[in-house]
C-alpha cells in the first residue's frame, strides 16, 4: 500500500532534508525602489483585508506589463500589453513558465494554466483566445478556447502554432459585474499582479481575511501571545463543550485585536503617502489607487506581506458585493 518511492525517500541524504527544512521565507526580491509605503507595509505582518506579495524567482522576476505606464485612466478600456503565451508546460525555461502562468477571464471567472496530465475530450469551441482578457489577448492568429466534456471548470486553449494549454477555474480570482477583479485568497503573487495589470477595466485585489502568518503568533494580548492562546484552545477541545468554549471567544478577540492594530498601521502608512485610504468595519482597509500606482507598487519588488485593497475608478460609490 505504501508506495515504494514514498518509503525509499526516507533514505535520502540528511543534507537535502536539512535544506528543505531550513528553506523558508528566504526569498529575495529585486529592490528597484523602496517606497515609504512599501517599507511601512512590509513591517506589518498580514492577515487583513488585502494581501499582495511578490512571488517567483528574483532573477526571473518579470516586471508587470508596461501598458499601465501609458497612463490611461483606469476606467478607459486599454489594449493589454503583450504577454508571451506559454504553449506547453515543458517548453522553454521552466522557472519563467512557472512564474507567469497563462490565464483567461471568461464570464467573470479566471481560468489559470495547470499542468495536469489528464486527457480531456474537447466539447465545444468557446471562441478565439484573443477575444478573452488574459495572457493570450495579443495573439493575432486562430488560437481557440474550448470547453471539455469531463469538467466544466476546465478549458483548453489550442494554439495555432500547434501547442495547447489546460486552464482551470480558480476560486481565488473572479470579476464582478462592474468589471472589477476580486481576489479571494491568501496571497497575490507576482504573476497574478501582472495579470491584473494587463486586464481591461478596473483592477483591484481583494483578500478575504485568513490568518496564516507565523509572525502574528507573537502578538501579545492581555499578557499572553496568540500562540499561547491558540495552544490552550487546541488543548481545551478534548474536554470543552464544542458549542460554548470560552477559550475560543478569547482567542477570537485576540485575533480581532491583532487585525485591527495591523490595519490601523497600514491605513496610516497609505494616508501618509498621499493615498486615499480608510478603515472599513475596523477590519478592512480600502484605498483608491490608480493603475499607475499599482504598477509602481508592484515594481518595487521589495514588498513582503502587507494588507490593503487596491481599487480604482468609482468603486467606493458602488457596492462591490451586489
Amino acid at each position: 500500500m505504501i508506495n515504494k518511492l514514498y518509503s525509499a525517500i526516507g533514505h535520502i541524504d540528511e543534507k537535502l532534508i536539512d535544506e528543505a527544512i531550513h528553506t523558508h521565507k528566504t526569498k529575495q526580491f529585486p529592490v528597484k525602489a523602496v517606497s515609504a509605503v512599501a517599507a511601512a507595509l512590509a513591517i506589518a505582518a498580514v492577515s487583513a483585508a488585502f494581501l499582495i506579495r511578490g512571488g517567483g524567482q528574483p532573477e526571473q522576476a518579470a516586471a508587470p506589463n508596461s501598458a499601465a505606464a501609458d497612463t490611461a485612466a483606469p476606467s478607459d478600456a486599454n489594449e493589454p500589453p503583450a504577454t508571451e503565451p506559454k504553449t506547453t508546460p515543458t517548453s522553454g525555461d521552466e522557472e519563467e513558465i512557472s512564474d507567469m502562468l497563462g490565464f483567461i477571464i471568461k464570464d467573470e471567472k479566471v481560468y489559470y494554466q495547470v499542468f495536469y496530465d489528464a486527457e480531456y475530450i474537447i466539447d465545444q469551441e468557446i471562441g478565439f483566445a484573443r477575444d478573452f482578457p488574459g495572457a493570450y489577448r495579443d495573439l493575432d492568429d486562430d488560437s481557440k478556447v474550448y470547453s471539455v466534456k469531463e469538467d466544466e471548470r476546465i478549458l483548453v486553449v489550442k494554439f495555432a502554432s500547434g501547442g495547447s494549454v489546460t486552464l482551470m477555474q480558480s476560486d481565488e480570482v473572479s470579476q464582478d459585474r462592474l468589471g472589477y477583479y476580486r481576489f479571494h485568497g491568501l496571497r497575490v503573487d507576482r504573476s497574478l499582479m501582472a495579470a491584473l495589470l494587463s486586464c481591461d477595466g478596473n483592477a483591484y485585489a481583494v483578500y478575504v481575511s485568513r490568518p496564516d502568518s507565523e509572525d502574528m503568533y507573537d502578538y501579545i494580548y492581555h499578557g499572553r501571545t496568540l500562540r499561547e492562546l491558540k495552544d490552550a484552545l487546541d488543548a481545551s477541545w478534548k474536554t470543552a463543550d464544542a458549542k460554548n468554549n470560552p477559550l475560543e471567544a478569547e482567542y477570537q478577540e485576540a485575533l480581532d485585536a491583532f487585525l485591527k492594530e495591523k490595519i490601523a498601521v497600514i491605513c496610516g502608512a497609505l494616508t501618509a503617502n498621499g493615498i486615499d485610504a480608510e478603515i472599513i468595519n475596523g477590519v478592512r482597509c480600502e484605498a483608491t489607487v490608480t493603475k499607475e500606482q499599482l504598477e509602481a507598487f508592484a515594481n518595487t519588488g521589495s514588498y513582503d506581506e502587507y494588507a490593503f485593497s487596491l481599487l480604482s475608478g468609482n468603486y467606493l460609490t458602488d457596492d462591490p458585493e451586489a
Partner: protein
Amino acid sequence: MEDSIIIDLYMKRDENAIAQTKKQYGKGLRSLAFQILHNEEDAEECENDTYLKAWRSIPPEQPVYFFAYLTKICRYNALHMLERSRAEKRSATVVELSDELAACLPDSKAVRAMEDRELGEMIGTFLNTLSRENRVIFVRRYYLSQPVAEIAGALRVSESKVKSSLFRTRNKLKEYLSKEGF
C-alpha cells in the same frame, strides 16, 4: 540550545539530552508523525520512540544535521506503525502521496526487490540535479509529507506553482528512473 551542545549531552550520556531534544524539536517531530499517522496518541508514541532511538544511536552516530536525523527516525517509526497496524489505507496523507508517486515507478518485481536504501540514494542523486526550489518543494511534499498549502506558505509562492513544480519533478523522476533501467 545549539544542536552541537545537545549532541554533546548524548555523547556524555546525560539524560537531559532527551529533554532538550524534545524542547527543541518536539513540536516538529510530532507534526511530522501526525501528518503520517493522523492520530494524536500514535503521533505521541512515535515521537517518544524517536527520542529513545536517538538515545540508543548517539553515540556512535554523530549527526551533522540533527533535526534531519531525527526526522528520519520519526518518519521511519511512523510508517512502521502504519504497516504494523495495517492502517495504511486509513492514512489519507500516505494514500494521497503514494498515489502521486505511483506513476513514477512501475510496480515490477525488480522494483519491489530493491532495497529502500539503494532507491533512496538514487532519488537523492536525482534531487541534486534539480533547482533548489524544486528540490525543496519535492522533499517537503514527499519526505516531510506537508500539504501543498503549507509548502506554498513556507516558500511564499502560489499553490499552483507548487503543484506545477511537483508535477514536472515527478515526470523528470520517472524519466530518470526509466533511464536507470526501471
